[in-house]
């Protein structure tokens, strides 16, 4: 059974203007997102800035109220619960934030930061919490002496480890990682990715891994969902996504990522999209990708939004939201002759 089921999730932010702060429009940040995560797997959520991937993460945790749709965690409706019920659920669902500089309170020592979730949920005695903090520091590759320090004494990579230790404090089952490595240099980024992979194995965690870097997402995830302008364009097994992308946006996104291998780069066919991502306050009609899509036809692309449907071999779990998905053959964006 899926540990997390998200069905037709929507989050619209009102645009208020004028002296009376009347609502004059909506930002359609998340506009009908459906996916499920199995226990123990890593689901990647990838897309460009403003596509709604972080908002999705926050709404799933109910850090933001949803406009409509449902989120079911382990059989419990996250959207319907009272405050106390949601707080109880958060023992099992935690988040690691993107910015390791803004997500740690600069006035608290590390031991306070990591013990905070334990205190809020009234778990253990003071001495037990202290022991737990030291254990957690060790798990994320820091040492006991770090407990007495303040966040400013740490580098970006170390701070992100503190953020992970805090998320692990309550022994959660699902962790939402919101761009946990984007602020880090490549060598530190690799340390962090390996740590997250090790923790998953050790503690049997489930991840929703949100990032804009497709290579990182593909590396760490079992399945990847590609988002564009508040909607999911494609969900595929991470090993299939590069080889058999179905949605033209996925193809363009894949071909836009520079690969650190000169020979592959020279042989690649590049697919360059024109124009910019439209504003989510005024999304295009029909398929939101149609103004930039190389395969667009006026009918049906501008008239109705394509639903997310299963494609390819049954059992591969490949889903795409496109009227004209790539025929299930060799990848157009892949290296020629391989």
């Amino acid at each position, binding site marked *: 059974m899926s540990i997390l089921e998200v069905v037709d999730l929507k989050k619209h932010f009102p645009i208020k203007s004028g002296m009376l702060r009347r609502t004059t429009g909506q930002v359609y940040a998340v506009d009908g997102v459906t996916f499920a995560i199995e226990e123990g797997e890593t689901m990647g959520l990838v897309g460009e800035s403003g596509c709604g991937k972080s908002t999705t993460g926050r709404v799933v945790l109910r850090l933001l109220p949803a406009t409509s749709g449902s989120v079911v965690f382990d059989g419990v409706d996250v959207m319907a619960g009272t405050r106390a019920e949601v707080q109880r659920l958060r023992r099992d669902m935690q988040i690691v934030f993107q910015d390791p500089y803004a997500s740690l309170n600069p006035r608290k020592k590390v031991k306070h930061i990591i013990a905070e979730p334990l205190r809020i949920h009234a778990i253990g005695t003071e001495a037990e919490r202290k022991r737990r903090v030291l254990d957690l520091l060790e798990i994320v590759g820091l040492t006991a002496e770090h407990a007495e320090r303040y966040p400013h004494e740490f580098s970006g990579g170390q701070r992100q480890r503190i953020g992970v230790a805090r998320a692990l404090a309550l022994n959660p089952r699902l962790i939402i990682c919101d761009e946990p490595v984007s602020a880090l240099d*490549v060598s530190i980024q690799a340390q962090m*990715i390996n740590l997250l992979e090790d923790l998953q194995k050790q503690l049997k965690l489930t991840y929703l891994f949100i990032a804009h870097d497709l*290579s990182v997402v593909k590396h*760490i995830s079992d399945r990847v969902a590609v988002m564009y302008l508040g909607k999911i364009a494609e969900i595929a097994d991470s090993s299939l996504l590069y080889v058999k992308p179905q949605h033209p946006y996925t193809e363009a996104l894949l071909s836009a990522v520079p690969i*650190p291998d000169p*020979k592959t780069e020279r042989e690649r066919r590049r697919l360059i*999209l024109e124009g910019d991502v439209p504003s989510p306050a005024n999304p295009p009609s029909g398929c939101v990708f149609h103004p930039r899509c190389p395969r667009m036809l006026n009918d049906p692309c501008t008239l109705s939004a394509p639903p997310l449907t299963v494609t390819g071999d049954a059992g591969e779990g490949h889903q795409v939201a496109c009227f004209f998905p790539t025929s299930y053959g060799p990848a157009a964006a892949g290296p020629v002759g391989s």
Partner: protein
Amino acid sequence: MAERLLEVSDLTTHFFTYAGIVKAVNGVTFTLDRDETLGIVGESGSGKTVAALSLMRLVPDPPGKIVAGSITLKGRDLLALKPDEMRHVRGNDIAMIFQDPMTSLNPVFKVGNQIAEVICLHQGKSKREAWAMATELLTKVGIPDPEQRIDQYPFEYSGGMRQRAMIAMAISCNPDILIADEPTTALDVTIQAQIMDVIREMQAQYHSGVIMITHDLGVVAQMAQKVMVMYGGRTIEYGPVDEVYYDPHQPYTWGLLGSLPMLHETIKHRLTPIKGQPPNLLLLPDGCPFSGRCPYELPECAGAFPQLEVVGTDHGVHCWIPRDERERIRASLPRFKAAAV
């Protein structure tokens, strides 16, 4: 033989701060030919941006100072030029595209004015002529409706369009050398692909030499013919892109390549990250800046920086580990195992 545009030798730029001397760039040597793209890669704090600013002589002084080395542009010694002569070189001979197009355009002037100003200053054109040329440039870099766009302010542009406007400004005087300092770091990948395309087109048209500064080894693989790997203000390895990617000799280069997830590979390798943290530029060791983090460190590594060792055509490396030993270690690393066979 291609025309040699730039020769930089032993460039050393230090910052004299209250906390001590920050050795941002420490004896960097490289060359750039016409039609060639050189990639400078390194992590934050490796000195790549300061190296580029030194070429333009734009290092803020005080606290920064170019304390040693020479920069020769088509036979002229740039470090010997007077400030007003240097001002003529900037824009005309060397132009730069900065990382953040939001802060490098002036928000209170129209984009057209900012591009036309460069043309008026360097080519002595009238305002009207310059404005017409600016419109043409915006067309060239692919801005739609250039006649209307030229009359707008930077805030009315998207991030990708601002970077296009920056490129238009940089190429307005047909410079020999174009320095792009992380031109796409602030942009999404699909926009990055557009901008890289524009830079390639402009280079083909104007036959410039391009210096591409980036932390992204993928961008270098895509754009450059030569690459210089920097760490702690030093050049650690230098050479043709294929040699450095497929036959790297420095443990830091191995570490960088081993840290990268590969989008195109079907088999998943575990990443092999570099242990520890990048060095503090105030407390650099006398020897190799990578000592202390390098897993194959020898006793001599911390003592002195190794001399350049030539390991291939135009391929140099700074490392104390003997060559046969290096090749043996590399063959044992997961990332290079397949390549060694």
